[in-house]
């Protein structure tokens, strides 16, 4: 089903939070202020690696307006944080390991005074040798960044006999792929408000994707009971995984408790770049072989991930990458090994796609290279190797049966964009003649943006021999939830509020994905009530129960499952009350708009029931996200699938790649909230476009070269394609009771390899490194001036031929 307003019908609803967002009424947590509030700011290391010899804060503390200066000596509890392994110092004691490491923090009456105080803090450093790459970190003589050495995590998965199988292969392709240090660049930089209460309690208003996890980590740092801390974590001005880990919360909390006043922190963009997480840069070496019929036989993968100075979720990200390096293909002999390695670079952590984006770029690159080497159609090659409905998962684990791979494959094969790929091959010769005539008559003009209305072969509108078009496609298989071996608790609450609303509460956050609208639609589906009957509480540890994190494409699925568990209990309890009040037997009653109904009539209003007391009308559920029964670390049970096809235009004089159109086919179960679904795929598409073509937080000697949005380039409205279509495949196998899967990540994965394939078709250059460099695609103008210039295979100046 093509997802749009027409196909969605009545399910196309506007966001419940939309009005407040368009009027400026909605307060982000970084918009909050409080009477008597002071401003917090953090002193971070100027060096990527240094010993701290002394920290002197007296001068700063004496500055008028300064109310608190803290260092590691002021951390009452554990001076470390990190969701998985708490190895990152809140405030460094004797050593800094990256340029974002915090050494001290200040609270003052004004931001200016706080900034001035930072300058007055004297820190004596002794610089240490810098490890600026994972290769350097693994060298035998490398200094150890952590007591356990420089390897945070190692993965290994093997089945069959890869070396033996390679000997039987007809074609083997070997390539090393590299991916950039992508930045989340949520528009709201990290910040929040920290309010100490008279009772010694602390209220934290700071965006995060898992309020309860923040509360646990803060309690550990502050040496306070968790129940004395309230974390309000929603709404959020964008996160994409980047705000799941603690960021400024420890400093705000410590400062607030230290001076007894509300503290506000809001990082500048530069502070955010410097201290914030990034996507793991990875080097991925793949060797993949097929038999003479094109069937995959053997696949060897080596992943080297730069995890930066501290752990955060570096280990699970590598685990995810290891699993997803096998993808939706049947490969009998597999050997994947991965290392997540500490360096003095910026900390890498969770980011939409969770390690999948990097390995899928590599895996799909292999598929395209193999198909070409075999002389096969790239999509047909995938078909003959595609997993079947009851196949095990990528790590050989049992998974919920799914035909998603086949469905998205079919949808892409039928897509008009994909047809343009073969159309192009046959038109090549005609194009070539046309271009040569243009050049020789001097009428060739540069870089006219051709019409891309979407019909007919693109060749007709070409205007210059140096402007080339190509079409490429990629497949994605993406796990939902955190995977085997990682606690993945889920839960929620429903009840009738004192005001007579159907009140649901989840410890999840609204960061733009549209959770509020999805919940509204699910609740209406279950209870046939009016939107006005619904009250939703999110992201507040005092008011919502544990639900686990709002990550890993798990939230939609999780809240759907929770509501389905809660529905019979709640409906029955409310109907029983209504029965007592109305005298009508429970079996004749049902929930509906505004109250409880019998036949065509509303017999009791929700408000009337609430007035008689709501005790016994609250229900809570706690469960675990569905997980594979096989003890394979990180293995998933539920998957979504996506196929992406794109057409690009490359200007060979400038190296500029323009994405003309994209189609996504997504198999993620029923679509709950079409508008939100579409938004997630379109948004993920934009982010993937940046990953493929422009985004990289460049570091040199472990210092950021790109320091702000002037040099870190994010796609603008002119960079995204004018034509993007999303096809949602809702079918699930008959016994699948897991409902809708999340689509927050899957749309951000496949575009990069699809673009790389399209660029190959357009230019003859294989891409093995992102973002695609213009230099690699640029040709000297002389290339186009020869009468018989070879137009089909352009001489490859970047020696990237695979």
């Amino acid at each position: 089903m093509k997802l749009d307003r027409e196909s969605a019908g009545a399910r196309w609803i506007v966001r419940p939070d939309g009005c407040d967002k368009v009027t400026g009424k909605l307060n982000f947590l970084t918009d909050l202020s409080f009477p008597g509030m002071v401003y917090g700011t953090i002193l971070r290391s100027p060096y990527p690696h240094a010993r701290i010899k002394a920290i002197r804060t007296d001068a700063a503390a004496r500055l008028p307006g300064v109310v608190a200066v803290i260092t590691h000596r002021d951390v009452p509890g554990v001076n470390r944080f990190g969701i998985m392994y708490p190895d990152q110092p809140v405030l460094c004691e004797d050593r800094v390991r990256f340029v974002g490491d915090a050494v001290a923090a200040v609270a003052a009456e004004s931001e200016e005074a706080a900034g001035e105080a930072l300058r007055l803090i004297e820190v004596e450093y002794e610089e240490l040798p810098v490890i600026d790459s994972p290769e350097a970190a693994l060298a035998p003589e490398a200094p150890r960044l952590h007591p356990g050495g420089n390897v945070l995590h190692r993965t290994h998965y093997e089945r069959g006999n890869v070396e033996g199988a390679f000997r039987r292969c007809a074609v083997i392709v070997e390539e090393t792929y590299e991916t950039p240090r992508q930045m989340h660049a949520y528009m709201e930089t990290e910040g929040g408000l920290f309010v100490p209460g008279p009772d010694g309690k602390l209220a934290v208003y700071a965006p995060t994707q898992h309020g309860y996890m923040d509360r646990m980590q803060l309690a550990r740092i502050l040496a306070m009971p968790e129940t004395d801390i309230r974390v309000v974590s929603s709404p959020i001005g964008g996160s994409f995984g980047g705000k799941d880990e603690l960021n400024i919360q420890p400093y705000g909390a410590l400062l607030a408790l230290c001076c007894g006043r509300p503290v506000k922190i809001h990082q500048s963009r530069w502070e955010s770049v410097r201290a914030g997480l990034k996507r793991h840069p990875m080097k991925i070496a793949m060797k993949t072989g097929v038999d003479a019929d094109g069937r995959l036989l053997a696949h060897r993968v080596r992943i080297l991930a730069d995890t930066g100075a501290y752990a955060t979720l570096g280990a699970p990200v590598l685990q995810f990458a290891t699993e997803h390096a096998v993808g939706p293909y049947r490969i009998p002999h597999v050997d994947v090994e991965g290392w997540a390695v500490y360096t003095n670079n910026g900390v890498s952590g969770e980011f939409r796609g969770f390690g999948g984006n990097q390995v899928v770029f590599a895996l799909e690159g292999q598929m395209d290279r193999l198909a070409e080497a075999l002389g096969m159609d790239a999509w047909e090659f995938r078909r003959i190797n595609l997993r079947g409905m009851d196949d095990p998962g990528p790590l050989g684990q049992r998974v919920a049966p799914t035909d998603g791979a086949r469905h998205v494959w079919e949808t892409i094969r039928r897509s008009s964009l994909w047809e343009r790929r073969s159309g192009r091959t046959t038109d090549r010769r005609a194009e070539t003649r046309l271009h040569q005539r243009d050049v020789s008559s001097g009428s060739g003009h540069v870089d006219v943006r051709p019409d891309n209305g979407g019909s007919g072969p693109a060749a007709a509108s070409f205007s210059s021999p140096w402007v080339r078009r190509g079409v490429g496609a990629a497949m994605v298989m993406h796990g939902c939830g955190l995977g085997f071996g990682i606690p993945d608790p889920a839960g929620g609450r429903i009840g009738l509020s004192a005001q007579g609303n159907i009140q649901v509460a989840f410890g999840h956050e609204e960061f733009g994905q549209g959770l509020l609208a999805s919940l509204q639609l699910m609740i209406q589906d279950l209870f046939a009530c009016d939107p006005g009957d619904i009250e939703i509480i999110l992201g507040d540890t005092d008011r919502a129960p544990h639900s686990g994190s709002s990550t890993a494409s798990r939230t939609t699925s999780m809240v759907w499952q929770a509501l389905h568990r809660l529905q019979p209990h709640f409906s029955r309890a409310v109907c029983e009350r209504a029965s007592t009040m109305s005298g009508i037997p429970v079996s004749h009653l049902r929930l509906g708009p505004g109250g409880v109904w019998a036949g065509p009539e509303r017999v009791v209003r929700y408000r009337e029931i609430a007035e008689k007391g709501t005790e016994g009308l609250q229900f809570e559920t706690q469960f675990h996200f569905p997980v594979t029964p096989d003890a394979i670390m990180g293995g998933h049970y539920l998957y979504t699938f996506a196929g992406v096809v794109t057409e690009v235009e490359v200007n060979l004089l400038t190296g500029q790649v323009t994405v003309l159109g994209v189609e996504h086919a997504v198999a993620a179960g029923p679509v709950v909230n079409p508008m939100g679904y579409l938004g997630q795929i379109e948004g993920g598409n934009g982010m993937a476009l940046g990953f493929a073509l422009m985004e990289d937080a460049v570091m040199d000697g472990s210092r950021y070269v790109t320091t702000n949005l002037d040099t870190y380039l994010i796609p603008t409205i002119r960079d995204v394609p004018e034509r993007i279509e999303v096809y949602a495949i809702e079918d699930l196998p008959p016994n699948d009771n897991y409902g809708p899967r999340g689509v927050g990540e899957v749309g951000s994965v496949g575009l990069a390899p699809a673009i790389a394939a399209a660029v190959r078709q357009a230019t003859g250059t294989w891409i093995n490194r992102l973002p695609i460099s213009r230099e690699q695609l640029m040709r000297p103008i002389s290339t186009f001036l020869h009468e018989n210039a070879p137009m089909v295979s352009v001489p490859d100046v970047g020696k990237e031929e695979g």
Partner: protein
Amino acid sequence: MTTTKTVVTLKVNGVERTAEVEPRLLLVHFLRDVLGLTGTHVGCDTSQCGACTVLLDGRGVKSCTVLAVQADGHEVTTVEGLARDGELHPIQEGFWEKHGLQCGFCTPGAMMTAVELLRQNPNPTDEEIREGLEGVICRCTGYENIVRAVKYAAERMRG
């Protein structure tokens, strides 16, 4: 760090506001911190993102590039002043109706930029919309719906 403060008077969303400010105070901080109009956001340090866009005498400006003292005696419209008498401005309707927002952080700036675009060009083509909104970064939506939102508003405003 003693600075002489200056008194500025601005008409903000139709209301005269007077305050004593430091000469180096940016308009965006004046709006957010002095007046409490937090709908206008800050997303960068380098005037790239457009989250801070407001109307100064009816023209779109990035308020992180203007000093409060430069706006002295002028009229400023922020997102809080777009709706009139409880009626949403067509651009607000467009962004809401067409899902031109997700997290909503860029939205006030994007809408003010769009208002400026439609002032200059009430009937923009898609390409002109893209050109006009190039200075606004949205990390969430992928922009497709922002184009639709602006088109919707343009139609509504032409009546």
